[in-house]
Every structure is written in C-alpha cells, then in structure tokens.
C-alpha cells in the first residue's frame, strides 16, 4: 500500500511538466468545434445558475436571502464547486477509457491521467471563483476574514477528487456498468447534497449524520462558510471530521485498487 502511494507520487512528480500541457489539451478538446469556444466553459454554468435562480426565487418564491446575502449570490457560491465536482464524478471516474491511447499505446504512468484531468477542470473552477469574488465585490457583498479558508479548501477539493478518480477509473475500465452507476448517482447527489438549499437548516438528526459523510455537502457547505455563511469549519466538527475520515478511507481504497488493477487496465481497454 505504502509502495503504491510512493509510486503514484513519484510518477506525478516525474511527469509534472506534462500535466499542465495535458490539462490545457483536455480543455481544448472540450471547446473544440464551438464558435464561442472557451466562453462555453463559463457560460454553461452561468446559464445553469440563472435557471435555478429563476425557478426557485421568481417562480416558486421559496427562497429568501440567506444570512442577509441575496439568494442568487448564495446559490452561485455553492454551485461553483458543484460544477467541478460534477465533472469529476462523471468524467473523472472514467479517465482511462477517455485517454485509452495514453494507457495502451504510449508509455505513460496511468496515475498521472487523473491528475491532469482534475487540473483541467480545476482551472475552470478557479476562473469561476475569480468571477464570483469579483461579483461579490461589485455588488458590495462583504467578503470577510472567513474567506482565507478558500485556498486550503480548493487544494483539498482538487486532491480529494483526483483520489476519487484514481479509485473509480480502474473500476470503470473493467466494467461499463460501474461507470453508468456512478453517472446515475450524479443527479441525485446534486439534489440531495444541499447545493440549492441550506443543509444546516434540515433539522433531522440522522440526515445530518448521513450528509456529514457526503463530500459534495462538505465542499458546498465549506465554500459557503468561507464566502456567505461566515463560520470556521472547525465550528462544525461533525462535518469536518466525518469528511476527513472518509477521505482517508477513500485514499486507502484508491491505493488498493491502483495496486490490484493498475497493471490490468492496459490489458482490458
């Protein structure tokens, strides 16, 4: 297990110069063929946020300002990490099929594929964060000291979903059913995890416990903690420690899967 970890880290270190190049290539592939090209990377999420805002605030009139912050701002702050996570849940869980030529035509360490795929979508996430922050400044929404949690959170989020990709991609390479299952989970996760509502307002104890182990809830809640809801993460120890515990378990599982299936992936694709 420990040896697999050092191998994954060493491969990533040795190929670090190519990770950036490959991440840009991944983004290029996504925008290929569209006249507006790069605009779509940010326009699609923006339209998504706009539609939800319209449906919930204008249509259903269910939303009220959360902690004195307009609902649309609060919504957008939670959606930005969601878009990154959504890409990693569906696309990140299947990177070996997506880049099969790196697996079985060239000598390329497969553990690095997750890193650059994650990096590509992380770039979009960072751009979106900059736009959100600029919007908040322009609309004179106060940005407080709690925002210093953001960089740490962003880094943890990047690594968490890269580890997720290391865990799920070999399984998806072996079985298309597995990947379909993961993709099918993406939509329920969106509705259940508190991306469009405030999870802390759900006053049911067992729901709170279950959701404490949901990484989507963790990242959405913590992003809002930094920008909207203004609290430190350690003030919600249940959420923080359940997440950290789950991260460790997932890392161990990912290493086990990489160790057992890492060499097999090239033979089955």
């Amino acid at each position, binding site marked *: 297990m420990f040896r697999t970890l050092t191998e994954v880290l060493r491969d990533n270190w040795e190929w670090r110069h190519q990770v950036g*190049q490959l991440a840009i290539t991944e983004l290029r*592939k996504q925008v290929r063929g569209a006249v507006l090209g790069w605009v779509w990377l940010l326009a699609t999420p923006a339209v998504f946020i706009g539609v939800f805002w319209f449906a919930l605030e204008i249509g259903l009139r269910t939303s009220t300002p959360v902690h004195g912050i307009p609902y649309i701002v609060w919504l957008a702050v939670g959606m930005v990490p969601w878009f990154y996570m959504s890409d990693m849940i569906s696309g990140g869980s299947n990177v070996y099929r997506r880049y099969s030529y790196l697996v079985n035509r*060239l*000598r390329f360490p497969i553990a690095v594929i997750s890193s650059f795929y994650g990096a590509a979508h992380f770039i979009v996430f960072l751009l979106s964060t900059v736009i959100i922050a600029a919007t908040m400044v322009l609309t004179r929404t106060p940005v407080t000291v709690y925002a210093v949690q953001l960089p740490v959170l962003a880094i943890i989020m990047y690594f968490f979903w890269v580890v997720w990709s290391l865990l799920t991609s070999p399984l998806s390479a*072996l*079985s298309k059913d*597995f990947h379909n299952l993961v993709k099918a989970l993406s939509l329920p996760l969106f509705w259940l995890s508190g991306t469009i509502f405030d999870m802390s307002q759900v006053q049911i104890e067992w729901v709170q416990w279950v959701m404490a182990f949901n990484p989507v809830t963790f990242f959405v809640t913590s992003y809002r903690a930094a920008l909207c809801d203004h609290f430190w993460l350690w003030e919600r120890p249940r959420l923080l420690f359940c997440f950290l515990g789950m991260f460790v378990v997932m890392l161990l599982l990912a290493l086990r899967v990489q160790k057992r*299936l890492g060499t097999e992936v090239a033979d089955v694709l």
Partner: protein
Amino acid sequence: MSSEVRFIETRAARSLVAIRFSHVTKTYRLYKNDRARFAASFLPGVKYDEVKADNDLSFVIRRGESVAFLGHNGAGKSTALKIITGVTTPTEGTVEVHGRVSALLDLSAGFDPLLTGRENLILRARLWGYASSEIDELLPEITDFAEIGKFINQPMRTYSAGMKARLGFAFASSLRPDILILDEVLAVGDRRFSKKSLERMQEIMSRDGITLLFVTHSLSSAEKFCKRALVLDHGALAFDGPVHDGVSFYKKSVA
C-alpha cells in the same frame, strides 16, 4: 510470481545490450464476461481461462541490431513489443530496456481523434520530452514527410486510415530513438509512400547504434532490413538466428 521491468534511459550507460528478456511470461486472464472480470477484482474464486501470450521467453538483443519478429497471428510478437514499449507489464520474469523507445504499435498510432494533427504531434513530442524549440524544428519535417498538407490543422477523426498511418510513421521515425519498434506498419500508403518509408528505414538503419525491432508478415522486407530473426510460436521462442535461416524456418512451419 514476480516480475520486473527496468527502463534504463541514461545515455551515458551506453550498454552493449539493448533489450534483455529473462523468462518472461505474460498471462492474460479471460473471463466469461465483463461482469465476471469486475467481480474478480473483489472476490476470490471467480473462474477464468488463462492464455499465455508469451511463455518463458528469453533473449538478448544487442545495441545496433535489427531484428525481425516472425510468427503466426497470436504467437506473442505484439505482446513482447508492448512489454518493451512499456504499455503492458509481464506477469513473470524480468525485462531490461536500455535507451529510449519509440514505437508504432498499430495503424492508429495512439493519436487523439479530437485533436488536430498538429496538436497531436506537439502533444506527443512533449510527452517524449522535447522542448518547444525542438518541436518547432521537428514539425515541418514530419508533416512534409507524411504529405498531410492542409489537413494538419484538421481534427484527426477526419483523417483517412492512410493519413493517420503516414503521420504515425513519420512521427515515430523522426524522433531519433535508441530503439525503434514497428509493428506491421510498413504496408501503409500507396506505392510511392511505401517506397519513401523504405528509404527512411534504410537511412535510420545506417545510423550508428539504433536498434530496430520489426514485426511483419512481409518476409521480403524482413530480409531487407534485418540481420537477425526471432520466430515465435505459441508464445515461446522457436528460432533465433540469421534472418535468412529464420525466414526459411518460418516458411517451413507454415507449409
């Protein structure tokens, strides 16, 4: 079971040996279906068939040699080349590879269909370790040779099989590797292009110290480029010697 593959890329090493296979076995596990394969990654006792693509294969290839791999389909030639390239690992045995390998393992050559020819070449050259300035020098040479013309800026999904193969060959043969691996790829293109690639091969062979591994069913081109032949049969080494003897050995085994 233990296996090890060592890639030694330092040019200073300049070993006399290019490739050493010691008792290499590659076993593929064949499951009834994908579900069984998936289950086997968690559960013990899932049934499977074993196929030994390479079976206790041992040989040494010295630096500068040109070796033809002959054998029927399924004899284990491609698996051996894939192990040398580093895209698959042996189940048992040890492999040493001295120097940098450039391989053309199939006609699609591992290009990304969504990227343009130019983007693919840049990406591949980066992965090979070239700097931007070196890539700028290399690109025109490759595209000229492949005769891709204006298609170089089109996505590769729009390429014909021949164009892909020409670009693949032009790229693999332009990299100046220590070991060049070509798997069934010389039959590409029209007569003019295949004449041109034969000339390119001859030019490569005249360089000092380059090792060529060549899988082909065209016995005449094997005799033309290679001095030595390895004939594989059911994953095992059936013949190892001068190429003319190897070709007649292979012909006899077909008859």
